[in-house]
């Protein structure tokens, strides 16, 4: 069985935030919620690096461990999904998540939150595939269509890889072997001298 994974190649990511926009637009994610975000360190200085982070679909995920209503579950292919019909929006998963992934829509003036929303690996949710309910609550189901997630599909530098862990790690290894790293990377001498 394939184990779905994300891999962000930090040598290629250029902080264009195209993945964030693609995800928001394609999945109809409301304002104020980002299923994916880009983190940049040393901005404007030598050694600037960016990484695109969303739900990492952990093995033995902490969010599943703390969820008081068992709303979060993991599919056989490793994708972690949330059942929005069961979720109570308590926020335990947000505290437990090592990547700060779970998002909660802002509620009324008294600060009541809605239910948790996070990256679905573009695999929809527990609702029937391609149903109106699934589209409304969870967004597209590209996995069922046989496509990779939106963010990885549109990544302009192909920094973001998504799919079977074995396949994407092989692609990444070949890439690293061909390009070299650090001072041996192509274009290094022109960029940093």
């Amino acid at each position, binding site marked *: 069985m394939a184990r779905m994974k994300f891999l962000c190649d930090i040598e290629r990511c250029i902080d264009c935030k195209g993945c964030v926009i693609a995800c928001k637009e394609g999945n109809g994610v409301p304002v104020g919620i980002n299923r994916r975000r880009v983190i940049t*360190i040393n901005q404007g200085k030598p*050694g600037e690096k960016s990484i695109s982070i969303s739900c990492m679909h952990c093995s033995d995920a902490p969010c599943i461990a703390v969820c*008081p*209503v068992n709303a979060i579950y993991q599919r056989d292919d490793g994708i972690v999904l949330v059942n929005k019909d069961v*979720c*109570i*929006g308590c*926020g335990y998963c947000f505290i437990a998540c090592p990547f700060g992934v779970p998002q909660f829509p802002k509620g009324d003036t*008294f*600060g009541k939150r809605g239910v948790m929303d996070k990256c679905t690996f573009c695999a929809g949710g527990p609702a029937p595939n391609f149903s109106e309910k699934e589209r409304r609550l969870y967004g597209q189901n590209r996995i069922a269509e046989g496509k990779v997630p939106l963010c990885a599909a549109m990544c302009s530098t192909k920094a973001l890889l998504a799919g079977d862990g074995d396949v994407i790690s092989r692609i990444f290894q070949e890439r690293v072997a061909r390009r070299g790293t650090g001072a041996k990377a192509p274009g290094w001498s022109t960029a940093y001298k």
Partner: protein
Amino acid sequence: MKTNMQKQRIQYIVQIGTVIVCLLICCFCFASELIIKRYGLVSSTQIFKEFHVVASPQWHHYASDFITFVHKAGRLYVWVLFGVPLLFLLHFLVIGPKKFSHTGKKIYFYSVVTRLFHWLCALCFSLLVFTGLMIVFAKTFGGGSTVLLARTIHIWCAYAFLIVATPLFLIWLKDMIPAPHDLMWLLKAGGYLSKQTNQVPAGKFNFGQKMWFWLAFAGGVVMFYTGYYLSTMGVSQAQMAAFLKIHLILGLFILAFFITHLYMSLFAIKGSLKSMIEGYKWEEEVRALHGKMLK
């Protein structure tokens, strides 16, 4: 046979060789250091460490503790929710309620304003406790919209309680300051462990009532503060974990005292509920349970 001279020469060669090798290693290290500095090469582990600082700086400090705590807290609530009433059932069967003659002089105990605010507080507080329990035992209620509604009521009642509790706090504050005789009351366990009704040292409020007062109001402020940040998510995840811990543990104590308060007012002292509705207590009861008030 090697002479002593030859042996010494070999030793010298070995020593000098070692020094040269060390120098070469140092030169290599220095050179690679220079290269690294010049090209700014940073190991990817280092880069990911820096990403980690931005993404979730303190996760590894609090997370494992938090994950185990959440499960423990649920079990503790089951113990308190069923254990405390069971203890009181035992008390009711073995020792039984206190009865006082409801004849003779009536003493005006609670003013109209006090009673009004008490019942407003009681309404908000009961709703807070019940909806809070619904959130803790969300799985039993099936989660989803039922518990989401409970969470909404929980948050509204928190604000409402803050408003109605402030006047009651000010009304009762004077009588609720702990006094030396409270220690004696505590040693006698308020006289609740004997069937006879002896006089217990207490003013207008005994130490049990004082504990409940401070737990409900001072604890209520802490609950409001932590709950406010838990609901608005205005702080870091590490702080939220700490706040949740405080909220759940303090909630446990408040639940225990809430059950105690219910038992005391509904079952343990006959006519206690009536006094909060009509405002009067009978003299015999006051003399026994709140003796220092009459002097």
